[in-house]
């Protein structure tokens, strides 16, 4: 046998090869085995992987979130409650915030703050009056009653602040708002159901009450004789018309002591 023949005999062994079925199944199981081992490897915590990076900064991210929540949370809550109205969830937050502001402010700033809050009460009243108009159209008695109740509560709050209001100009502004409020209330009452008429009457009484309070403030303030504009004078007249229907001895005494008021009553 030559060397070439021997080599050819050896090369016949190339016919020995694995079955196609085994080739397919072995390939598949090898791929699975590799992927399982890769998965276990990444679970150990490869710092170069994306999730490893996240874990590395997990504590820092958590602390940052906590700080942001602690600092920004109350501020965001205050901002969210700013436009809330009586009966809403955040309104109590709003009142707490305002009370806190008054407590921490100086005596000089307190009256100014209270005037600002009085204005807010009137803004709320306007929004509630708008809701009243909608409520009457929807003829939902319960909702109307709730809104009117909130309205009266707001007026009571405004009256409380007006007790401490010293500025005549501010009082006139408040009076103008009360006038508009009354007009809106009358409109809302026209379309309201019979069941709510009594509630509307109570609301109108509350407005009359606050108008009297405003007039008292104006009378008690200095420089009453010199009203700033003609519209201010109209407001005073408007308030006095209300006062004439307001029967209390205290008010009569106040009026008697004022020349301008005496002139009108004549």
């Amino acid at each position: 046998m030559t060397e070439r023949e021997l080599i050819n005999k050896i090369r016949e062994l190339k016919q020995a090869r694995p079955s196609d079925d085994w080739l397919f199944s072995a390939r598949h199981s090898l791929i699975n085995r590799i992927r399982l081992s890769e998965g276990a490897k990444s679970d150990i915590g490869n710092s170069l992987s994306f999730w490893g990076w996240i874990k590395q900064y997990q504590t820092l991210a958590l602390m940052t979130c906590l700080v942001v929540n602690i600092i920004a949370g109350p501020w965001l809550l205050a901002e969210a409650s700013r436009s809330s109205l009586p009966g809403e969830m955040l309104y109590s937050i709003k009142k707490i915030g305002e009370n806190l502001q008054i407590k921490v402010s100086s005596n000089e700033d307190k009256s100014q703050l209270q005037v600002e809050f009085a204005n807010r009460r009137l803004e709320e009243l306007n929004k509630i009056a708008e809701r009243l108009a909608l409520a009457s159209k929807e003829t939902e008695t319960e909702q109307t009653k709730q809104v009117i109740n909130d309205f009266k509560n707001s007026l009571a709050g405004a009256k409380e602040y007006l007790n401490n209001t010293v500025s005549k100009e501010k009082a006139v502004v408040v009076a103008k708002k009360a006038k508009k409020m009354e007009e809106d209330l009358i409109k809302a009452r026209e379309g309201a159901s019979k069941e709510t008429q009594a509630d509307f009457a109570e609301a109108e009484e509350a407005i009359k009450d606050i108008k009297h309070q405003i007039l008292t403030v104006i009378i008690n303030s200095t420089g009453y004789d010199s009203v700033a504009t003609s519209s201010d004078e109209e407001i005073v007249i408007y308030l006095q018309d209300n006062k004439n229907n307001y029967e209390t001895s205290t008010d009569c005494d106040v009026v008697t002591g004022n020349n301008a008021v005496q002139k009108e009553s004549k």
Partner: protein
Amino acid sequence: MRSDLVFCFMSHQDEKNNRELAFIQLYDQYISQIYRFILLKTSSVQDAEDIASEVFFKFWKNISVTDANVKDIENPRALLYCIANNLITDFYRKKNKKELTIIDSDKNISEILSENIDLYKKAELESDIKQTIKSISKLRNDYQNVIIWHYLEELSIKEVAQIMDKSQGAVRVLLHRALNVLKQDLKNESKM
């Protein structure tokens, strides 16, 4: 920065996929050769299948430790044979078997032949192959290896030298001697 992170993640994922793809291609290219080598050394189809799978898994583990790619390896085939040789040595150590084994029955021979060969040719091959395998199995281990690697699997002298960690001259000498011994044995068998 967010886009950079996503890019890094995607790049890392692409690299991983490329590495896996290259490895699968290597597997498809060399699985039959590795299987054949192990089969001739162990004379058992079952053991050849198990060890062949283990060879490739070990190869993968070797490259994944350093995140290397198959393409980065100069001679992956040589590395595969190296791993196979070591696993066969471990196999015999565990089984406490002699290194020289013989495929005895004709049934085994027909099992290992390709399914695509027609029956007539298969019958012709069976007797020749059986004799060749018998003679090769009588050789000592390093003679078996050089014959299988150089003549059967057509590795170059340089590649064989790399696997065996010997000089090319030493490998040539081994080849010459191995062929002589094999020729003598086949001659003796044919006379019998």
